[in-house]
């Protein structure tokens, strides 16, 4: 399954919404319920799903879903 689709599933699960369709340019403002409080739940879910671990610096500097996707791609390779 393509990376973006797998990440989409994580988003649907974390934000409890089957209709979410993520795109690289999307940010927290575009997804209902994605705020600073739920952000780390998303990060933990991504880490568990892909079997990776992000650093503080990586998490603090993600600007959009594209940045998150690139970081996951670099780690799973």
């Amino acid at each position: 399954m393509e990376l973006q689709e797998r990440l989409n599933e994580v988003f649907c699960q974390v934000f409890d919404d089957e209709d979410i369709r993520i795109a690289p340019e999307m940010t927290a403002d575009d997804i209902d319920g994605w705020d600073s409080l739920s952000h780390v739940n998303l990060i933990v879910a991504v880490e568990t799903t892909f079997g990776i671990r992000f650093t503080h610096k990586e998490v603090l500097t993600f600007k959009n879903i594209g940045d998150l996707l690139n970081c996951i791609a670099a780690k799973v390779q």
Partner: protein
Amino acid sequence: MPFNSLDYFLFLPAVYLVFYLVGDRARWGVLLAASFGFYAALKVPYLPAVLALVAVTTYCFGIWLHRAQAPGTKRMLLWGGIAANVLVLVAMKYLPFLSENLRAVTQFFSLELQVPAVRALVAIGVSYYVFQAISYLIDIYFEIEEPEPHFGYFALYLSFFPKLLQGPIERTGDLLPQLKTPYRFDYDNMRYGMLLFAWGLFKKMVLADRLGIYADAVYNDIHAANGMQLLLGTYAYAFQIFMDFSGYTDMALGTARLFNINLTQNFNSPYLATSVADFWRRWHISFSRWILDYIFKPLQMQWRDWRTWGTALALVAAFLVSGIWHGASWGFVIWGGLHGLYMACSVFYKPYQKKLYQKLGIQKSPYLKYWQMLVTFHLVCFAWVFFRVNSLSDALYICRFPFVSADNGLHKVLVHGFHAQKAGVVLVAGVVVAAYGVLARNEQALIIWNRYCALRWLCYNALLLALILLGGESQGHFIYFNF
């Protein structure tokens, strides 16, 4: 030199005139000299020296951080820079509090340790520019920003006088590039800046200071107040602090606009928030963003393996820091702790709350929104009690006091020093501010405002007249100066 003083009304045009007449290459120098002059006008000789110390230290650490290659050295330099700034803050603001509590502990355990009493220092503005300096260093560490090579611009970024005493706490990327942009006279900026300044004065002098008379009369003698007065006194304080601080922010933003600089907007109708988390997205935005990015997020990441508990703990810790930042007193600590606790609890119940609303089919009901606003406002007001009280025993007295008691007749609501005429002015001014809040977001109203010059001038004159006629009872100082 507060914004609502005669000195400032002479200082600002003089600074603008010099700024306008000199060339772009010297403008940073004019603003830097004006900022240090503005700070020196507080007549506390050590304050400009502390500002200069923070500027030099942070500038050097910023350059060293950028040059360092090894991750260990970088980390050490970051913590060194943060420690230097925190030390300045502690020395200026927290030593008397620490010494007082340490003495209480030694007395309690009958220890023979001599803890010297420490005299409180004036620390106006220090917590604002120290937080700005820390954010500068962290942003360089995470390579979000490059260090500023020009010391003059960097010192101006820390000390720019409109935001020096009470914020907004500006990010490097938001303010520094604007300070370097060549200045061109802009009529709209000039007009909007002056209007915003006058509007801030109105909020402060006509509304906040009158509300303050009521809140002070109740809170300075709480045993004499009945239940209704305590409740209204708390509401009055909630709106006093909002009008006082947002009035100041309008004046800061208005002043900066004269120099073509946009500072961060600190408020967005905070009492219309539908949850405490939402309140913090609307109240003192530049500060809550700082707490969120530099305290909450790193802690939340550190404790992420504890999932919801980690988030809840990070929230409590971040808001305790927020409370302590406001000042060295247990009232502020409890205020911060309460906000942390409200939000920590919401982390646990929010998913169930969402499911409950879905089951009841009320998730999109406007009444639910109004109910949430009402509950949030009262949670915030309850926390304000600890923020405002003169002593913790007063806070406990208020918490125990039955607000609804037999002697709560409305005829007894007004207190000594606050008669019906003042209440009338507060009501009318409150309606004017609320109407402005609604109309400023209405496209139709904006079109009418821009089209009719006579209408604009009528409003400008009404605003000036209100300031002249009703601003006389102003107390002068701003609440957030103390932090």
